[in-house]
């Protein structure tokens, strides 16, 4: 399956409103566990998110985010432990610095930085996870589909 | 006094204008312990910080406490918690003048007024003129009058005020600043 057809297939459901596809990169210890808690507490949220579990936000290479966009994501969530609470003591701190630089890169590439949500969700914040998910989806929905990559692919023979 | 007063009004106004956070004060009393005027004030520096933090705005402007501060900065220098009561009191005085100038103690108000009028007139202050002006508007007319001859005898009081070249400059500055704070200590008196 070529990338282009993949994008075609993943395009917004035709039924009415645009349903964005969101990739979430989360750390194992805080946000993933927080999302588990959302489940056990039956916190309802919109189903547009697909999750990738990583040991720590420190592991999140910005290439992952670009890859997700390339693969047809309309938005991305990156979430880990609160500052100072990192399971690995400093990983999220390095991650934060990296993402600050990444935002500049996004602006440079012309990707609207509102497509990426950086948040902190601890293992006890199930409710907050639901909010982050819903807010991101609504925001990205308002921004419309992300098709810069598609155009890019169409332009390059 | 009601304890339902909104504590945010004055507190946040103070913070905006001076960067001072009265809620930071932990009421240790070190400021009042060193304040040379504490024994004459009904609200000591730490009381003033407290009154702001708890929103007792009225109490602050009732007595003459804020007018008794000498701005000696002892409180500020020694506060363990990086508060600046001297600056807070300045802020309150400015606010009091803007709100209701009549509330300020007459002699003190008269003195400040006379002083600023001197600046506005000459660009500098001449004691003779200042004393005369102050005594005329302040009330305590005869107190200290005995000093003038002594001062003059020692050549300490210039009789003739001279005025600086840039007086127009200074007048404009004084007027502009007073207009910004709506104080009453300008021309009208």
């Amino acid at each position: 399956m070529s990338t282009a057809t993949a994008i075609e297939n993943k395009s917004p459901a035709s039924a009415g409103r645009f349903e964005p596809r969101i990739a979430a990169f989360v750390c194992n210890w805080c946000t993933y566990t927080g999302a588990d808690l959302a489940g056990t507490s039956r916190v309802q949220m919109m189903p547009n998110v697909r999750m990738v579990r990583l040991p720590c936000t420190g592991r999140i290479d910005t290439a992952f985010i670009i890859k997700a966009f390339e693969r047809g994501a309309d938005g991305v969530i990156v979430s880990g432990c609160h500052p100072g609470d990192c399971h690995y003591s400093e990983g999220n701190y390095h991650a934060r610095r990296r993402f600050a630089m990444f935002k500049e890169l996004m602006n440079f590439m012309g990707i609207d930085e509102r497509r990426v949500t950086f948040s902190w969700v601890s293992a006890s914040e199930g409710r907050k996870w639901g909010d982050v998910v819903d807010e991101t989806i609504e925001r990205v929905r308002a921004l419309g589909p992300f098709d810069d990559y598609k155009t890019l692919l169409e332009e390059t023979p | 006094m009601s304890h339902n007063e909104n504590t945010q009004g004055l507190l946040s106004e103070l913070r905006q204008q001076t960067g001072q956070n009265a809620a930071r004060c932990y009421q240790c009393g070190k400021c009042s312990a060193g304040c040379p005027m504490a024994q004459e004030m009904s609200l000591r520096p730490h009381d003033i910080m407290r009154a702001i933090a708890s929103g007792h705005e009225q109490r602050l402007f009732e007595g003459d406490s804020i007018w008794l501060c000498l701005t000696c900065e002892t409180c500020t220098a020694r506060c363990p918690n990086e508060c600046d009561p001297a600056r807070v009191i300045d802020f309150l005085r400015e606010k009091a003048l803007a709100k209701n100038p009549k509330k300020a103690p007459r002699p003190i108000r008269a003195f400040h007024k006379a002083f600023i009028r001197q600046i506005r007139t000459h660009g500098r202050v001449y004691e003779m003129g200042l004393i005369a002006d102050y005594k005329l508007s302040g009330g305590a007319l005869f107190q200290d009058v005995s000093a003038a001859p002594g001062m003059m005898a020692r050549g300490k009081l210039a009789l003739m005020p001279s005025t600086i070249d840039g007086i127009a400059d200074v007048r404009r500055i004084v007027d502009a600043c007073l207009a910004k704070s709506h104080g009453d200590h300008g021309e009208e008196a």
Partner: protein
Amino acid sequence: MSRIGVFVCHCGENIARTVDTAAVAQECGKLPGVIHSVDYKYMCSDPGQLMVKQAIAEHKLTGVVVAACSPHMHEKTFRRATAGAGLNPFLCEMANVREHCSWIHESRTAATEKAIDATRMIVEKVKRNAPLSPIHIPVTRRALVIGGGIAGIQAALDIADGGREVVLVEKEPSIGGHMSQLSETFPTLDCSQCILTPRMVEAFQHPRIKLYTYSEVESVDGYIGNFKVTIRKKARSVDEANCNGCGACQAVCPNKKIPSEFDAGLGKRSAIYVPFPQAVPNIPVIDRERCSYFRAKAKGSTKVVCGKCAEACGKGAVHFDQQDTLVTEDVGAIVVATGYRLYDIGKDQDSELLKGYGEYGYGTVPDVIDGMQFERLASASGPTAGKILRPSDGKEPTSVVFLQCIGSRDPSKGIEYCSKICCMYVAKHTMLYKHKVHHGQATVFYMDIRAAGKGYDEFTRRAIEEDGARYVRGRVSRLYRDGEVIKILGFDTLSGEPIEMDADMVVLATAMRPQAGMAELAQKLSVSYDKHGFINEAHPKLRPVETNTAGVFVAGACQSPRDIPDSVAMASATASKILGLLSNEQLEREPTVARVDESTCSACFHCERVCAYGAVEHKDIRDRSGNLVRVVASVNKGVCQGCGTCLATCPSKSLELDGFTDAQIHAAIMAF
């Protein structure tokens, strides 16, 4: 070619109610590489696990994906089942279709679609999983304790009593720490020496405790289970093996006017000295800075000056030419128990921020002393034999003023924290004073009385209610010497009255600060410390005695201000953690660790800088004849915690994290 098995769970109704599990199994069955895909009511039940095992055997599976609950719930279960069927357990992973899907969505179509996506992503990842095996690290079953205060002594004794050897390193000539200086201790007023001395002796005599006094940790290499520690034994100038502690040397030493550290400067000692009579070991040391012999030598004199101690020593134990020696010890775990020092209001401070208190005379007024000096005055073994006498003229003070929170809770000095113990010891001091000087008046200037602990508040109340201590709520603005007395300018914020009073003596309850040199020690151990220099615990609630470096633990006041009961409790907790650790001959760890591709590593060492655990090492690459070709990064598997921060930082993509490789994650993203 991969042969993946997919197992979709209903969880009774929990998943199946919202997710069409049959559809998930069917869709996933179509994925390339998936050769077996089924759904079942309870995957974690015995029959469920059996299904997995049988499928592995029957279909020769190379990977297992269980689409069920959270991996935090049952990953271990299914990995065990996988291993049971002879497949490497790390080739099994879970897709979370319960917590992250069926429980949080209502729409069946959307939930089913999401479950398929989630499973597909894990399938793609598992195709690229490699067999891994847990990491086993051998353990040296001994421990090092740094600091011989009450915390260090307690930890050492507990570990040694638990059957493991302990190396105890103390920088001073004797163990005992601050507790040995105290008179009586709150909240029970029992004699400090009486409870401490037996413990010191016990530590000294314990067959499994190896004591290095007058020694410091020079360097630390290695990692949990395998530390190699170099210890500098400073030259005592006295042969420990020969000396019998008779004290003859001290008696003849002509330099007897040296302020005694133990007596907080209030007593005197000689140049060759034992810090205090109950010292352990009872072996003197020569203070080379103060000894005439060494001073003459330092000045370049060739003449032998003094040497009286050596002459007096019947055992020939004084060795002027002794040198520092370095010894190494192998240990599996380390305890930091270096304790505290007190803030000193003197003008010389180690940071600009700490300067201040000119309003209290910077400690230039002789009758303004600190809490530790009061302890020495009140101590039966102290310079005044337990009489409260003021330093300037030896008179008994009839009015003593105590100032609390000096340096503490003082953000303008950069110390925001409360030192936690001073409220208690000030109350103790007022009692001791009252018990010794019946007609004396104790006055305490305080901001709050912090006395949380069993019997603590009762204790401070007793000082006020029974022993007549006058408590005034307010800080003092200024104090100065006025002839015979000290003038105090304070304010009673409760009555609203300014207070001007005279005192014969003033006691400052100064802040507890970490020991000097904590940053250097912490760096040697690669543990983190807060901005004040207190060692950081790994987690304030769940891992209070561990540090962020595996195998390094913390106890006592070096972690934050604490009193003796807390220090001892912490030390015992540390000891039990260490005994647990040392009960194994080997440690087993998840194999999620980083790995360097040496062929592409450009030796920039960005990875080293970001690694919070110091897991990245420099490795020399040599050719066949042993010449150094280049240096590359290398990850120590024993130390690496698998956070992956180094990977994301490596500019040449030379690092991989087992279990979360770039290839695995990219595959998951591409299946998105």
